């Protein structure tokens, strides 16, 4: 059974729907990517999962829990880490305080300090800057911090909204390499939303293509990489 199963999701902002009958799934320990151009509805899908979008139809099933209608806080507490669009850094808090906020719902002190070590291991730069105000971190560092903050929750599922956005290619590669590690080592399932299709398709095992709020193509990532239309529109060769 899939870890996350979304069926017929319809919803939007105010009275307009921006998602229409969207279905997809993320396997236990798997990596799924949703690709799409600007305004396709990728961010909206992630918002819907976390109870931050008006959902008018469909079901969102996470393991044994139905997420429809639940408050964001409660959804997150089920083990869903969300690295939002724009990173959501707490600019006035220090790096370390940002991570402590990420672990706020947990009580296991030993596990928390273990996870501090782990994320500092993934991103040594964050450790160097742990007492620095997060607002003064670079864009890449803030992205690392956002991922780490979500990991401090010890999620079962990690939602990532365009982690490559606005970053230099080398930093992007670094971050993708670490997502692979996180997935391998901690068995965290990942739902990755991206415009950088080539990187995303390399990392993911299954992929969905979103256009104006509808899924227009889906399948194993390998297959989408080969598909003529994806190549032309998203991979550029």
């Amino acid at each position: 059974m899939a870890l996350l199963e979304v069926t017929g999701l319809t919803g939007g902002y105010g009275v307009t729907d921006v998602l229409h009958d969207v279905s997809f799934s993320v396997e236990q320990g798997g990596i799924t990517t949703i690709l799409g151009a600007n305004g396709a509805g990728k961010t909206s899908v992630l918002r819907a999962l976390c109870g931050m979008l008006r959902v008018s139809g469909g079901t969102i099933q996470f393991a044994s829990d139905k997420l429809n209608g639940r408050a964001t806080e409660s959804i997150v507490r089920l083990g869903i880490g969300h690295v939002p669009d724009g990173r959501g850094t707490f600019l006035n808090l220090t790096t370390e305080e940002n991570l402590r906020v990420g672990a706020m719902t947990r009580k296991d002190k030993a596990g928390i300090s273990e996870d501090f070590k782990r994320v500092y291991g993934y991103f040594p730069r964050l450790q160097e800057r742990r007492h620095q105000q997060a607002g003064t971190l670079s864009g890449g560092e803030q992205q690392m911090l956002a991922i780490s903050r979500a990991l401090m929750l010890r999620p079962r599922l990690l939602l990532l909204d365009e982690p490559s956005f606005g970053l230099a290619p080398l930093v992007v590669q670094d971050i993708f390499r670490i997502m692979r590690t996180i997935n391998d080592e901690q068995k965290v399932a990942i739902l990755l939303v991206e415009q950088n299709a080539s990187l995303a398709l390399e990392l993911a095992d299954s992929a969905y293509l979103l256009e104006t709020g509808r899924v227009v193509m889906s399948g194993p990532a390998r297959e989408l990489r080969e598909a003529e239309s994806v190549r032309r529109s998203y991979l550029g060769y």
Partner: protein
Amino acid sequence: MEAFLHQVFSGLANGAIYASLALALVMIYQSTHHINFAQGEMAMFSTYLAWAMINAGIPYWMAFALTVIASFFIGLTIERVIVRRVADAPVLTLVVVFIALLVILNSITGWIFTYTIKVFPSPFPEQPLFGPYVSSHEAGVVGVSLIVLLLLFLFFRFTSLGLAMRATAENAVSSRLSGIRVGWMLALGWGLAASIGAIAGMMVAPIVYLDPNMMSGILLYGIAAALMGGIDNPFGAVVGGLIVGVLENLMGAYVVGTELKLTVALMLIIGVLIFKPTGLFGRSFVTRV
């Protein structure tokens, strides 16, 4: 010279009270961008609770502690029951709600306790302990305010709950995404603000006497202090409070006379809004008042 020193010291004591009130305003402003115009009347109501307890024979400090706790729950309840329902309403709606709250608290208090002016006791001795220029009550007010500030600082800096509240104040969406129950954090902020206001009320009541309108002027000074320090900066609120307190006393004694003291507060508010809307230490512009 002696008169001057006396004015400065009693200005600092008043300033400590304005600082506390300003801090309560800032605490709510930071997380919701609302200026709680009813903060003063909430403090006044709390002070009446303390008066009733003391009159019933409960020892002062016991009544003090009970009032602080009761006020916390009153503030919490006001947020949960009233404020959160209008949290996303237009600014004007909010202002109307806060002013309604102010008037309601004022008239309920007048109805229960009458408008007759009452004497409120000071827990500090009559005779001056710190030299001739400063009364024990003034020194005590400064001391109590410092303790409140220190406790607040420790709470926000070193506890998990304090961190959660700071996170909520800065970015509610990210806080939700970290599993923080944002609604409760806002309610806690209201509770804390009400407690701080209650302490300010109990400290000022022996000076201005207890009546349902006792806080209206003081709230203006508190707003002036908060704006002067930067409405989103707790440290600024405290400094702003002390500056306003001393300034008010010196202006009253040497420049404009005591009748026009309150005008000083209003001039400060207008001056800051026009010339330096971010205040002395503020980060962001004041866009909603």
